[in-house]
Each structure stands twice: as structure tokens, then as C-alpha cells.
């Protein structure tokens, strides 16, 4: 039992960390293709991290311990959150993945990242932190409402339990999940800093939000920040994928099921990255103050789910 849990923790965490740079690069690749470019090689994400880990660290003289601590805290809280989203197999322990705790661990990581953005006293960092926290504040009701809709439909607040329910049932049994999926998709777009909310490609003061916050980070610290962003993206994707399309997720800890599970998850991430990449290429960046109406769309979908379920 204990061994099973420890095995799960190790496998899940390592797999999430290992696949994250790939997912990041995949989206870049898809975007490049839609724009008629070739794009980076598939392993570019790993090369970048490797390169950054070898570089030296430079701190601004204005910065304090917050700057030094934030990358560690960021990766710590995000990996703790990643434990709650089963990717390799469903653990047999109950109560491991409360969804509210999951969301708030990500908020904690964001809190320290925003503080680090303010720490060096540069205007860019402050601007990034300000925008990130504002957007995060407005998206939060949407996130929680979609989570409430999920909990309503699947009758659980525990993420592995939710996955078990969808794994044993089918989407036809829970048609309202499709509506929730739309709002979760928008939440993922916001949380992972993608067009039309944020532009991860540029370092342009007009468009960047997330990049501005980590502008002052260097070397291995920057690598940790990039990696945690990748982990965040993977676990959010996994949340949506395993609720809508849980095929292949292993329900016990055998070698073969785990291998199948990993392969199928990689395939699903590939598909999802294509969807995100195409979606990003179709959209233009929305003005910051127009974003709340974009979020309202997601709120509408999750609220509609709740109302449908109440009337059903």
C-alpha cells in the first residue's frame, strides 16, 4: 500500500517533469507549421533547459531573498500539485487529490512568482505581476465554478476519483462534461499564458504577462521557472484530458498498463497540443481590458452545466 503510493508519487512526478518540455515544444512546432515555418526540433525544450542549467546566475543588486527563493517554491508547489493529477496510473489511496487544494497550490506558486516579479524593481516585472494577478483574480471565479460543475457532475471533489468515474463510464453518460470542457479549456489557455490572453513568444511590453515576471531570472533559476510553467501546463492538460478522454489510463500498477498509460498520455498530449497550437494560430491577442468578456464565456459554460444538472 505504502510502497504503491511511493511508487505512484515517483513515477507520476518524474513522468510529468519529463514530458513537460516536449509538450511546450510541440505547441511551438504546431504554431510554426500553421505559419508556414518549420519550427524547432522536438527536443528543443530539453536543450534549452540543459543550456540554462549550465549557465551562471546573475541577481539584480536591488533584489532580495524573494527572488532567490521563488523558483524553488514555484517548482515545489507545482510538483506537489502534480501529484494530485494521476497520469501514469490511478493510485488506490483515497483523498489524495482534493481539487481545491490542487488549484490553490497553483495560486501559491503564482503568488511567489508575482512577488519575485516585483522584487528587482524593474518596471517590466511589476507590470507582469500586476497583470498576472489581475487576470488570475478574474479567472478564479470561472475556475472554481467549472470545478463546482465538475464536482456536481462527477459527485466528487477528489481528482483521482473523478478520473475513476470517467474511466469506468463514458462521455455519453455525462454529456454536460462537454460544456465543462469548454470552460476548462479557456481556464487552461489563461493559466498557461497563451494567445489570446498572453503571448509566450514575444518579449514585447505590450503583450507579455508571464514572461515579464520572469524576465529578471537567470540561468538555472530561469530553467526552474520554465520547467514549472511546463509542469503546470501538463497537469492542467492532464486534468482536462483524463476527464473528457480517459482512455488508456491504467487503473492498477502493473508494468504493461503503466507503459500503455504513458504512451497513451503522450499521444493525447500530442493531440491536445495540436488543438492548442491551432487555436492559438487562429486567434489574435485580445486587449487586456477586453479579456473579462472572454472569461465570461467560460463562466457561462460552467454555469449552464450547473443549471442543466439541477434541472435534470
Amino acid at each position, binding site marked *: 500500500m505504502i510502497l504503491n503510493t511511493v511508487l505512484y508519487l515517483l513515477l507520476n512526478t518524474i513522468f510529468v517533469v519529463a514530458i513537460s518540455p516536449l509538450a511546450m515544444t510541440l505547441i511551438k512546432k504546431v504554431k510554426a507549421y500553421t505559419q508556414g515555418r518549420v519550427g524547432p526540433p522536438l527536443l528543443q525544450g530539453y536543450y534549452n533547459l540543459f543550456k540554462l542549467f549550465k549557465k551562471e546566475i*546573475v541577481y539584480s543588486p536591488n533584489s532580495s531573498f524573494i527572488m532567490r527563493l521563488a523558483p524553488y517554491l514555484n517548482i515545489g508547489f507545482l510538483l506537489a500539485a502534480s501529484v494530485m493529477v494521476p497520469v501514469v496510473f490511478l493510485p488506490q489511496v483515497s483523498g489524495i487529490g482534493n481539487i*481545491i487544494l490542487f488549484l490553490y*497550490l497553483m495560486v501559491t506558486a503564482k503568488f511567489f512568482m508575482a512577488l519575485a516579479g516585483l522584487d528587482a*524593481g524593474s518596471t517590466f516585472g511589476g507590470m507582469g505581476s*500586476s497583470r498576472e494577478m489581475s487576470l488570475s483574480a478574474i479567472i*478564479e471565479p470561472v475556475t472554481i465554478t467549472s470545478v463546482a460543475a465538475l464536482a456536481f457532475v462527477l459527485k466528487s471533489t477528489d481528482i483521482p476519483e473523478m478520473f475513476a468515474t470517467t474511466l469506468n463510464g463514458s462521455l455519453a453518460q455525462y454529456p454536460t462534461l462537454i460544456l465543462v470542457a469548454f470552460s476548462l479549456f479557456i481556464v487552461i489557455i489563461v493559466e498557461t499564458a497563451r494567445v489570446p490572453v498572453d503571448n509566450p513568444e514575444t518579449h514585447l511590453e505590450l503583450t507579455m504577462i508571464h514572461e515579464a515576471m520572469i524576465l529578471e531570472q537567470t540561468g538555472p533559476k530561469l530553467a526552474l521557472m520554465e520547467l514549472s510553467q511546463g509542469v503546470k501546463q501538463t497537469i492542467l492538460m492532464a486534468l482536462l484530458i483524463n476527464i473528457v478522454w480517459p482512455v488508456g489510463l491504467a487503473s492498477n500498477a502493473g508494468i504493461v498498463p503503466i507503459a500503455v498509460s504513458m504512451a497513451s498520455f503522450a499521444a493525447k498530449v500530442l493531440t491536445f497540443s495540436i488543438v492548442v497550437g491551432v487555436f492559438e494560430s487562429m486567434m489574435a491577442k485580445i486587449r487586456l481590458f477586453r479579456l473579462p468578456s472572454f472569461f465570461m464565456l467560460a463562466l457561462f459554460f460552467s454555469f449552464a452545466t450547473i443549471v442543466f444538472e439541477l434541472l435534470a
Partner: protein
Amino acid sequence: MIEGLFLGGGAAMVLAALTSVTGSRERGSGRRFALGLVMAGALAWIAASIVILADDSDLTFRIYSLTPQLGIAFHLDRLAAFFILIVSSVAACVAIYSLKYIEHTGSQARRDMSVAAMSVFILSMVLVVASANFFGFIFFWELMSLSSLFLVMFDREKAETVKAGIYYLVMTQFSTLFLLLGALLLHRYTGSFDIASAGGLTLSTAGIIFIAFFIGFGTKAGIIPFHKWLPFAHAAAPSNISALMSGVMIKVAIYGLIRVLLDVLSPDLWWGTLLLVFGTVSAVLGVIYALKEHDLKKLLAFHSIENIGIIVIGLGLWVIFSHYSLNTLADLSLFGALFHTLNHAIFKSLLFMTAGSVVAATHTRNIEEMGGLVKTMPVTAAIFLIGSAAISALPPLNGFASEVMLFQAYLGAFQVPSPLTAVLLFTALAGFALMSALAAACFVKAFGAVFLALPRSREAEHAREAPRAMLVGPGILAAACIILGVFSYQILRAIGLDLPLPNVLPVSLIAAAVFWLAVLALRRSEAKARVSETWGCGIHTQTSKMEYTASGFSEPIITIFSPIFRTRKTGKREFFDKDKAIVSGGSGEVHTLQFFEERIYLPTALFVKRIASFISRLHNVDLDANVMYVFAVVVVILLAVGQLL
């Protein structure tokens, strides 16, 4: 033994009040001795309340009787003991903090008086909670209000303080008025002033009594729209007093509300809806007003309104779920509200105390003039950071532990059979989430503007770390924030609450392990780290003028919520030439409409003033007219008494 500890604690407080005014004035030894007595008394109370909580023993004793009906009697049960525990633990930490803080302020005589008033204030809060009947309750309630008014008026030379004092006096008397009304109405139907069950009341009567108590307690607790006194009074008072007022005094009102709901009246569904709506409005508006605020202590005061909102939401949920007999959810909400009461007391008094240290070091409350204090006041900064993370409900700290209980209760709302109530609950949930995320944004702003980047004023540059006593007091509370958060699941299990809650301990362990591994992995490159000017868009050196300000930080949120702030921006420019090409100067102003002040408070005040001037005109007459008034009043009283008897 419990009685002895309880009365001993009270005696220590009285003694503290006496010694602080009689002790040696020159070196302040009397004052220090008095604060020591406050600590001792608080410890006695903590011991007493722990014994009661552990044994679940009820204890009633009477110490004074004016008439058989009107007497001062105490009743200590678990609920009272829990609140006494909150009051006395915070009071002990504030007393440690005050040892040094008090030396920063006022003249010697005024410091002595302030310590004396503080002891009376703490004593009165505990006695309010312990009171067994409304006679004692309202008597000590008034003592609490007046002693705190005295403390708010500490800097009475300042116009701002006078304004705060007047607001506070009016609102606190307003609150007592409604409590008195509630108590008298109860007496009319039950025939006694005892705080005991009055379950037999008819629906409409109980409703009216509840409204009276809700307004009375809500005013003291700072529920919007009765909140206006709170930011003024908290900002004007010395910081140790703000810590007590915000951390503890408003909790005494929450105690009253819980006691009345739980023990005295039997709640109806619409009470729950009322509490939920007022709670949500207070929580969301409180944090939105806080975002705009640049006075550090006012910002914290608005967060008190927010947190009181959270507690009231918990009570509202409890009433609603109890009505539908959803017992697990009802328990989650009630214990969530109670746990948040404790947690808010801890992190809010911590924040007010560290804010006090910052204000004492920089001589300003405006966060726009601070900055960079993390380098000069590192320990204060670390403690403030823990408090900020706790109040922003970040796991694994205690603020999260209590908010997640309410979230869990909300997520169970689909079990409510009435669709209308369920929709209301899900809507309120969205508001709750908004509040929680805005709080995090607000504390990034507060911590960032106060402690990070470069100092924005000379005072901030030359700030010095607070003395040890001013670190120990809030430091104890910071440790409590961590312990109550990480072990929340275990603690709740230990006191026998088996609720469906996430266990934060394994998650914290995993986060800590990852953190430790990352530190190990990067230790070598961290050692080689270089400190050098980072890229600043070609600017040679960075100055504090280039930093993001607190106003800049909150500007996007304020723009998004502009319908709530109702800001009016005006800009004026003057030109050198007639073609309006070269600007010679200009000004810009942002006005905000103070909704509650301009639409509710001022009209009410004007109305009262008009009545008062009418009455004062009536007064201005000769003797025989006055005799006629007296005659009319006597007739009215006789008629009223005849009707009642």
C-alpha cells in the same frame, strides 16, 4: 479550578490596569509590570479554556446580583471557551509586542493610560464572552466599546483621529442600541434576560429579534453597510490596539451572533440567505476596497471586513444546510466559520503588529512611500510574508485550511433539494472565489510595495529592524499560522471532527522535499551567483522612480471593477502656444464616489440633524411649556405601561 483560573485571570487584568497608572513613571517599570500581568492573566485564561475544551464541562457561577433578574453571572461552555482562547492568546502576543511598541508613541502619562485601558479592554472582551445573561453581556459590551474608544483616541490632537473617534462612538452606540432592543424583545417573550434557548418563539417574532441582533452584532463586526467606522478606527488607533480590535474585538461580535443563532433562537431558512448575501457582499466589496487603499492600516482594516464576510458566509451556509438536514455540510460550514475566526484573529493581529513596526520605522502609513524594507527589516518582512500568505488562503497555511472547509461545503451544494437555493449557492461560490483571488492580488501589492524593490523615501531607506519584543509577539503568531495550517487535518481529527477535508500534511511534505532537492541540485551554481545590474531597457542605473507603484499595480483591477469604484478621471493641460503643441503644465485627478458615505451615511446624518434641530427649537421655550411636555410624557409612559401589563 476553572473558576479560580478564570477569576484569577480577571484579577490580573484589573491589577494590571491599576499598576500601570500607579507605577514609576520615569522608566516605565510600572507599565512593563502591568504588561507582564496582562500576559499572566491571558495565560491563566488560556489554561482555563483548554481545560473546558478538553473536558466539555459547563460551568455557571454568579458573582453579583442587583436584583434577581439583573445580575452578573458567567456561563463557560465550549463555545465561550473557544472565544476566550482566541482573545487571550492574541492578547498575550499583543502584550509582548506592546512592551517595546508602546515606547514609540505619545507622552509617558498617555502610555500609562493606554496600557491601563488596554487591560480593561481585554478584560471586558473576555467577560462579554463569558456572560450568562444579557444584563452582563451589554454592560461589558459597553465597557469594551468605551475602553476601545479611549484607545482609538490615543492621538487625539489629529483631526483624523477625532473623525475616527466620532464615527466609532456613533456606530458603537448604534450597535448597542440594537442589541438592547433584541435583548428587551427577547425578555418580552421569554421573561428573562438569560442567554438561553427561546425556541418557542413564533416565526415573525423570532425574525424581528434576529434582525435586531444581526444589525447590532453586524455593526460591531463591520459587515457592509455598517462597516464605515472600521477603516477609520483601525487606522487611527496605535497598531497594538488595531491588532486587538481587528483580531479580537470584532470576533466578540461574531461570538454574539453565533451564540444567538445557535443557542437562543432556532434559525429559519431566510436568515441563512440573509447572512450569506451580506457575508458575500462584505467579503467581495471589502477586498475590492482594500485593493484601492494605499494606507497600510486601512488596507488591513478593509481585509478585516472581507474576513468577517467569510465568517458570516460560513454561518449563512450553516443555517441553510441545517435547514435541509445536510448535516455534514452544515458541520463543515459552522466549523469552517469558527476555524476561520481563530485563523483570522491570528494572522490579522500578526499583520497589524508588523504593520505597526513598519509604520514606526518609516513614520508613514502610505505604502507608496515605503519599499525596499526587506533588506533593512528582514525578520519583520518574513513574518509579514507568512501573514500575507495566510490571509491570501495559500496552502499550507491556516487561512487555506479554514477557507477550504467553506469551499467543500459549497461544492456539496448540489445536494440541496431546492434548485433556487442551489443556484444562489453556486453564484455565491463564484463571489467567494473572486474574493479569495483578489485577496492574493492585494497582498502581492501590499508586500511588494512595502518590502520589495527600492525604497521610495528617505525614511524607508533609513528604516531599522524592529526590537526583539516587536518580533517575538507576531513571530509566535506566525508559527501558529504554519502549525494550524499544515496540521489542520490532524487537529480537526483529534478534536473529533470527521469531515471530508484534504490532508495538507503530505502535500506540504512533498513540496518541502522538492524544494530541498532543488536547493541541493542548484547549490553549486547558487554559490557562483553574481550580483550585477540587470538589463533595464538601456537605462544606466535603476532608481525608485522607475518601479511599479502600488497604484500602478492595482490599476488593471480598478479599471475592470470601475462600476464598483465609480471613479471619475479629469485631466487638465495648459499650453505655451495657441496651437496647443507645447505643453507647459497640467494636472490630473481621480475622484472616487464614496458610495456608502454619500448615499447612506450622510443622508441619515442630515435627517437626524434636522430632527435634532427641530427638537432643540422645541426646547427653547419658557417654564410652563416645559411642564406641559413633562405632563405629556408622563401620560404617554402611563399609557404604554398600562398596555404592556
